[in-house]
């Protein structure tokens, strides 16, 4: 349909232009008065008089309004002038370049790790193609490798390898030995994800009919493997692009844990000090890199498929084939353990300082005490509440937004694509820089990356619901369009959408925790999982339990998320008559199998 295509294009162009304008106008959007911040940072001796503040506002051009300001910034950028830092007053360009250099090196190491893991995961599937035996799918190893988000993995490496075993330096950026741990922390989940997707793609492609025909025609095993590989990699090349962007800029947490002066830490630093020009430059670079990677991935996909293909000319993406029973048991066990923490922890007081500082775990204090002498079990349990509450709010809002935007259809296409390509951590950094770090800021940031898949799903569910025969005939009974929508279409759509939203809940909680870990979300003394982990890491040498307790809760959530995504609802469980969206959610939950992980990794 041409006019909807045109609508989608217009929507994309408009949101692209909107994004450029917003990027340029970030200082104006910043809620805190930048003039005061700059005055404090640059001229500590000056009194913050109205005159002085006005002079700085004038100098920054804050009075000109957002559009003029944005245009001025862009014209400067096109001349190669990224402006001056608000904090140090020095030029931004050289500092950014240095950070990008470090990040590029780290990304290169991480890609090497990821590729090694991918090869290891894909080899069994490739060997099965060579030997012509039935495929089995990626198996549990890939799932296990992607189970932990990289900020958790980085913390675990730091504690175990860097501090306890002392095999490698725990932090810094001084030589190849300092690059190993961060490269592993970044590369293992990325490689696990890629390997899993590719292995599943290979087993799916190997079952396609042309493979049999090639074999009958006497094609050699190697020829067939090459063909299968080409088809399979075309299917996962977009994911590869997103993973790469995630490694480059989403590595904020890993760089923070290992104190590496890369792009991620640069962004985080400028967000924390509200140095908006530096943030703008960092985001600009990220967006540029993302654009380049997207173009290269698109080009490679066309090359692999031998030209552009009309939609629907390829068989659907392969389904992950993991064992439903193992997934169900894992999910149940993880959930029970989490509930146990809640049951025993919630009655305790998370703020009361009543124990020795860093008291070790014992019978009366199962998880030990933190650096201020507060009960860690209580803090982790209450942290569950303060992590899951915003997660619930986000999921419900995302469903609401998804429904609204699904109604608009193609008009929402542009914003959805941008939101889909934003790593959650980057969204968190930008919004925290604008609004100041708070629970509200990270909630908005995670909401921004959560709504697109729900909107897509809502759109397909709505279409299904409207195609139900009795919906069309309700008009004959004199029902208005609005009433049909509210009383018949919506009730048919909501259950499936709510189920999908709930499946995303653990992933959303982990994204929130990752932002909390960076100090962008809840502020001390609030108990929040990410924040608790960040607090614990400072004392990891003397009292490892301060890290272990929150890490345990997070690992349980990650395992729960991955297991939940691997679940497939048995087809017999569909309830009679009401379950019109059942098929839709099934499809969606299968896609989800790759998602809780990539929520934290790439924001896909």
């Amino acid at each position: 349909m041409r006019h909807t295509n045109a609508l989608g294009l217009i929507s994309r162009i408009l949101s692209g232009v909107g994004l450029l304008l917003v990027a340029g106008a970030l200082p104006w959007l910043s809620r805190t008065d930048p003039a005061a911040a700059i005055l404090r940072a640059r001229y500590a001796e000056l009194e913050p008089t109205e005159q002085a503040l006005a002079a700085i506002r004038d100098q920054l051009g804050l009075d000109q309004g957002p559009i003029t300001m944005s245009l001025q910034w862009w014209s400067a950028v096109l001349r190669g002038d990224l402006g001056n830092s608000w904090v140090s007053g020095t030029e931004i360009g050289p500092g950014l370049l240095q950070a990008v250099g470090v990040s590029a090196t780290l990304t290169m190491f991480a890609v090497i790790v990821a590729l090694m893991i991918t090869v290891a995961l894909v080899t069994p599937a490739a060997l099965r193609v060579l030997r012509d035996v039935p495929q089995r799918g990626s198996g549990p190893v890939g799932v296990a490798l992607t189970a932990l988000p990289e900020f958790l993995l980085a913390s675990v490496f730091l504690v175990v390898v860097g501090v306890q075993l002392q095999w490698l330096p725990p932090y810094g950026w001084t030589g190849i030995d300092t690059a190993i741990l961060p490269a592993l922390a970044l590369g293992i989940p990325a490689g696990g994800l890629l390997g899993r997707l590719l292995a599943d793609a290979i087993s799916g492609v190997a079952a396609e009919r042309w493979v049999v025909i090639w074999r009958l025609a006497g094609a050699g095993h190697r020829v067939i493997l090459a063909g299968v590989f080409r088809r399979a990699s075309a299917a996962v090349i977009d994911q590869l692009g997103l993973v790469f962007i995630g490694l480059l800029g989403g590595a904020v947490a890993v760089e923070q844990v290992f104190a590496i002066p890369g792009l991620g830490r640069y962004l985080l630093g400028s967000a924390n000090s509200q140095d908006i020009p530096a943030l703008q430059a960092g985001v600009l670079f990220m967006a540029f890199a993302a654009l380049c990677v997207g173009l290269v991935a698109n080009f490679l996909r066309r090359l692999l498929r031998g030209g552009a293909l009309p939609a629907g000319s390829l068989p659907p993406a392969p389904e992950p084939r993991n064992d439903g029973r193992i997934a169900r048991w894992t999910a149940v066990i993880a959930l029970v353990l989490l509930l146990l923490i809640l049951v025993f922890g919630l009655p305790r007081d998370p703020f009361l300082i009543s124990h020795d500082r860093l008291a070790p775990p014992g019978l009366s204090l199962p998880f030990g005490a933190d650096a201020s002498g507060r009960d860690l079990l209580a803090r982790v349990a209450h942290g569950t509440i303060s992590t899951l509450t915003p997660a619930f709010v986000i999921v419900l809002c995302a469903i609401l937004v998804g429904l609204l935007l699904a109604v608009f259809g193609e008009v929402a296409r542009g914003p959805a694509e941008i939101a889909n390509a934003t790593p959650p951590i980057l969204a968190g950094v930008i919004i925290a820089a604008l609004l100041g770090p708070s629970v509200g800021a990270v909630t908005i940031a995670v909401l921004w990356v959560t709504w697109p898949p729900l909107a897509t799903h809502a759109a397909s569910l709505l279409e299904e619901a409207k195609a139900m025969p009795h919906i069309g005939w309700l008009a004959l009974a004199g029902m208005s369009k609005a009433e049909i929508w509210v009383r018949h279409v919506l009730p048919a759509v909501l259950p499936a959408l709510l189920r999908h939203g709930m499946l995303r809940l653990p992933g959303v909680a982990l994204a929130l925790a990752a932002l909390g870990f960076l100090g962008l979300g809840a502020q001390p003394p609030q108990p929040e999982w990410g924040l608790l982990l960040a607090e614990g890491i400072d004392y990891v040498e003397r009292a490892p339990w301060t890290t272990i307790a929150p890490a345990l809760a997070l690992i349980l959530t990650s395992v729960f998320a991955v297991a939940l995504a691997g679940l497939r609802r048995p087809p017999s469980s569909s309830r009679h008559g009401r379950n019109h969206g059942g098929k839709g959610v099934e499809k969606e939950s299968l896609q989800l199998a790759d998602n809780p992980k990539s929520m934290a990794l790439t924001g896909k």
Partner: protein
Amino acid sequence: MRGEPILEVSRVRANRGHGRHRLQVLAETSFAVHAGQSLALVGISGAGKSTLAQVVLGLHAAANGQVCVQGKKWADTKLRPDRRRRHLVQGVPQDPAAAFVPRWTIRSSIEQAIKRLTDSTMSEKLMLEAAELAHFDPQLLNRHPAQLSGGQLQRAAITRALAVQPAVLVADEPTSALDPDTGESVLTALLDSAEQSNIALLMVTHDPHFAQRCTGMLTLHPPTPDF
């Protein structure tokens, strides 16, 4: 009993799809049906029979022409049927389940329609009268659509349509999902009730035998591509 026709379709054409994918599915068609008469719409697949039924029902906008009911304009290229006159044209779908909300009983679906479309406070009476006309067992009114057989459900759908006292009844292959005997008895119920209530009946059908039993017949031809 000739005079003003109840249903008058003049120069109606219809399209499906938008923009580049727009396709004419109904060639220009004109006809009229008087009270108590029945017109069979026949033609090969793709002739636009079901689309014409939908245009008359007011579920699909025509691309050209207009439909008049009782001499007043009912639907054209934009106009949606007026809610106060909505009861005048009712339909019996090909899949009778479409006439009912799956999670409601037959009774509440019909009651809803009566409440919305008529001023009558005696919905029970209207419902029972309609059930008698349609040969539908009133004992089954409290069941859900899934608990009825195909023939019962088709009679229930006719009951629903007749309960609001329409002037025009559109039936889109009402017997295609039924076995020949049941189809025959449903068709008899439909024709009898239309005649008794002085309704203009428009029936889409594939079956020449059924078409013979109507008072008139109109053969539709697929539109010729116009580019």
